[in-house]
Structure formats: structure tokens, C-alpha cells
């Protein structure tokens, strides 16, 4: 059974300097509150893993939490560049960041292999692209047909962090709406932290509901609006205006730092 604890305590216990950390949520249910707590606790040298780095990883990169980034799409969706992501890669600010990038299909299959505790996943991809020479992919031959397929190594993060709509008192979690790779992220990781909008007495099965049992989760922490400016389907709305505003906030190093000081470092609440 997952323990229901304070977010601060959960992050302190589960996320260590140098860890490989996967915070997932595909546009939906991005665990901003937990990521901000990681920033407040000053974690360093993290290997940050995430298909779509998004604003949260822009913030973590800009605050110098990471030594390495593993990803497949680093943009502000529908808006443009992630300026802190670019600054880290283009200029090593505030610290140099090593990158390993894949396609979405590759990353998804890396998580699926991790969740299955297989050492690799296979897919048709990578062939004929320049990515082959700049990432960790190999090829295997089908023993039945002779076809050559891309092989991607399983992701096995030290810790996965996801956000969900609700948990019951025994730490069983339910999320619905766009499910992304959250289940795979939790099942691929050594440790798992789930933040939730609310605790309920009993999980009421929902259409599209995905249940993650408490016995594969280490800690559940309550973080109302903990996905903001992302959202929790049926409970909160995506703050598209903030996504647009981030383009300005994050463009300049000083503006960014000032904003983070005010809205994340000095904050004790769970939302930015």
C-alpha cells in the first residue's frame, strides 16, 4: 500500500541528487507541483526523462537541476520554443546538459519495455534518419522473417512522478482523460510518487479510467491543482494563457530567475 504523505516529505525521501527521474503526463496531468518541490529542495545532477519536456522541464533545466535530459519533443506546444531548454543546450546555461533524444515511438517503447522488465523494445523506425548517429539505438534481425528492426533500450528510472485525479485512502490511484505513458512510467521505475487532486473513500470506476494499485506506488501526496498550468481532466482546465505567457517570462535569463524566485522558490503552496 502506498503511504499518503506530505509532498515535501515524499520528494525528500524519494528523489535524490543524481537520480534518473521521469515526470510524465502527455500535455495532460503534468506533475508541476511535485516538480516545483524538486526545485525548492535544490536537487542537482538529475537525469531528467520525459517525452515532452514542456514548461516543467524548462523550469527544472533553467534552475540547474539536471545534468542530462532524455526526451523526444522539447517544445512549448502550439507556442514555440522552450527558451530555457534551448539556452541549456545551446549555451550550457546555467549548467551544461547532456542530451539523449528519441522519437515519441522510441520513447514510448522504451517505457513499455521498462514496465515489462524487458531489456529492450522493438519498432519500425530510426532507419534512414540522422538520429541513428546521435542516440542510443541498435538494430535486431527478426529470426522469422529476416527483417531488421530498431531496438531501443528499456527505460528504468530511479523514480517516476505522475499526477492523477484521485486516490483512495490505501493509495490506489485513478486517472482518466488522456492517459499518456503514466502507467508505464510508474511501472518502469524503481520508486514511484503520485500526486493527486483529491483523496476519495472509494475509487468509482470511470470511463477511460486507469487504476494504478497502491502496491506499486511508494507515496501518494495530495496536491490540489498540482498539474497547473497543465490540467486534470474533468477537474481543472489547461491554462493556455499561461503557456503563451511563458514564452515571454522564460525568454530572458533574469526575468526567468525572478519569476521562479517569486512563484516557485518563495512559494510553499503547490501551484505556481
Amino acid at each position, binding site marked *: 500500500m502506498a503511504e499518503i504523505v506530505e509532498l515535501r516529505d515524499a520528494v525528500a525521501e524519494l528523489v535524490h541528487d543524481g537520480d534518473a527521474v521521469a515526470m510524465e503526463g*502527455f*500535455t*495532460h496531468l503534468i506533475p508541476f507541483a511535485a516538480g516545483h518541490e524538486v526545485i525548492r529542495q535544490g536537487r542537482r545532477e538529475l537525469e531528467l526523462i520525459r*517525452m*515532452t519536456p514542456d514548461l516543467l522541464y524548462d523550469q527544472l533545466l533553467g534552475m540547474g537541476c539536471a545534468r542530462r535530459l532524455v*526526451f*523526444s*519533443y*522539447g*517544445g512549448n*506546444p*502550439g*507556442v514555440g*520554443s*522552450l527558451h530555457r*531548454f*534551448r539556452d541549456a*543546450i*545551446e549555451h550550457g546555461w546555467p549548467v551544461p546538459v547532456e542530451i539523449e*533524444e*528519441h*522519437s*515519441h*515511438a522510441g520513447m*514510448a*517503447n522504451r*517505457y*513499455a519495455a521498462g514496465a515489462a522488465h524487458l531489456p529492450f523494445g522493438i*519498432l*519500425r*523506425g*530510426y*532507419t*534512414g*534518419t*540522422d*538520429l541513428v548517429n*546521435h542516440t542510443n539505438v541498435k538494430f535486431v534481425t527478426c529470426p522469422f522473417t529476416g527483417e531488421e528492426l530498431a531496438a531501443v533500450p528499456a527505460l528504468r528510472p530511479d523514480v517516476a512522478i505522475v499526477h492523477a485525479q484521485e486516490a483512495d485512502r490505501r493509495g490506489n490511484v485513478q486517472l482518466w*482523460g*488522456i*492517459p*499518456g*505513458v503514466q*502507467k*508505464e512510467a510508474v511501472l518502469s521505475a524503481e520508486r514511484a510518487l503520485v500526486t493527486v487532486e483529491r483523496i476519495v473513500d472509494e475509487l468509482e470506476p470511470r470511463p*477511460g479510467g*486507469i487504476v494504478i494499485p497502491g502496491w506499486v506506488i511508494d507515496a501518494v501526496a495530495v496536491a490540489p491543482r498540482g498539474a497547473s498550468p497543465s*490540467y486534470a*481532466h474533468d477537474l481543472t*482546465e*489547461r491554462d*493556455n494563457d499561461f*503557456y*503563451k505567457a511563458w514564452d515571454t517570462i522564460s525568454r530572458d535569463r533574469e526575468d526567468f530567475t525572478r519569476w521562479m524566485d517569486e512563484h516557485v522558490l518563495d512559494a510553499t503552496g503547490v501551484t505556481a
Partner: protein
Amino acid sequence: MSAEAATAGEVQTIVAARLLADARSCFIGVGRPSTAAILARAIVNPELVLVYESGTIGAKPYKIPLSIGDGELAATADFVVPVVEMFNYWIQPGRIDVAFLGAAQVDRQGSLNSTVIGDYDAPKTRLPGAGGAPEIATGCDRVMVVAPHSKRTFVERLDFLTTRAAPEAVITDLGVLEPDPRDGELTLTRLHPGVTVEAAREATGWALRVAEDLRHTDPPTEDELSALRELVAR
């Protein structure tokens, strides 16, 4: 005719939408490709199944979503699948007819760069990266690219080959490029109203081939234009 009133971008979006008239399903990202596909449901193909890599299949957005994972997409979808299932069961087997893709650079064969401008290890501009594009491009039977016509975009040589694609059409704000059946080189086959061949050549980073039977795209109709403007205004 209100074609005079249409901007180049509006013409591009409408021409792209028209190409979806016969499609059963279309895979789309954000930006102009997304607008075009949503418009297609309004003007030429109400049954078109819109598929977003977030996992929403059969989404029916009333507004143009900012991201590919806006709540309205999941709320209106026929069904929603995890990302692993999306790539393995739906894209890889070629179940989605058409892919609508954008890119920062397009070469004369139609391959795409969305990874980096400059050197990979010391980039001038770091772009977002591959996302779903490489496998979407190889998984979908028909690929169409929607991109602004400029020398920055249509380049002799990609700085990075992110997505190996052989698009059946590249829809720009100046016209439409299609592969020459002889060697697959993207060739100007159609010009939007009021655009000259010279303008298209000027905006292309290689010596642009022009089809012998070069035609003009039909100007946007009143209905198309008002449908697009209404959609954008929502």
C-alpha cells in the same frame, strides 16, 4: 468572390483542408496543419477522423486546440488510447490514412528537419526534436507537409534529417509542390491565386522545378473562407 480578401496563410490552410476530402483519417500536430484538418471536417469531409498523438482518436474540436492534448480533444474523441498503443497499434500498422506534418526545413525529396539548425553538437538553434513525426511519416500511407514557403525552410540540404518522408504534396503559402513521378523531386505544380512562378522560385533554396501543366489553385470560396475565419475566431 472574396479570394482577394484571403491572406496567403488562409489560402494555404484552405488548400490543405481540401486535400483531405477523401481521407478516412488524418494524423495532425498543432498549428496550421491542425487548423486545416479541423477545417476539412467543416468544409469537405465531416466524417474525417482526427487523430492526435496524445492518444485521442476521432476528436471533434469546436475550437482550434493550443496543444495536441487539450481537454476538448479527449472529451470529444471516439476513444482515447495510451501513447504506447497509439504508436504500436494505430500508427505503425498504417491504420491512419494521412499524416499532416510541419517542419523547420524541407529538402527537395520532401524529407524534414525539426531537430536542429546548425551543427548537432553545437547548435545555432535547437529545435524541439522528432516527436512523433518519423514514425507517423513512415506509418501513414499519405503524407502531406504544410510549411511556409521561404529559403530558410526549403533548403538544398537539411541540417539534420529528422523525418524521412516522401510527401504526396507540400502545401505552402505560395502554392503546392508535388513529387516529380520520374525521380520524386518536389516540383511546383500549383500556384495560389496572385502568386508568380518567380516568387515561388525566389522563396525556394534550390533550383525549383516547375511542372509543365502548372495550374492555379482555385481561390477560396466565400463558404470556405467564412468557415475558416469562424473557426479561428472561436
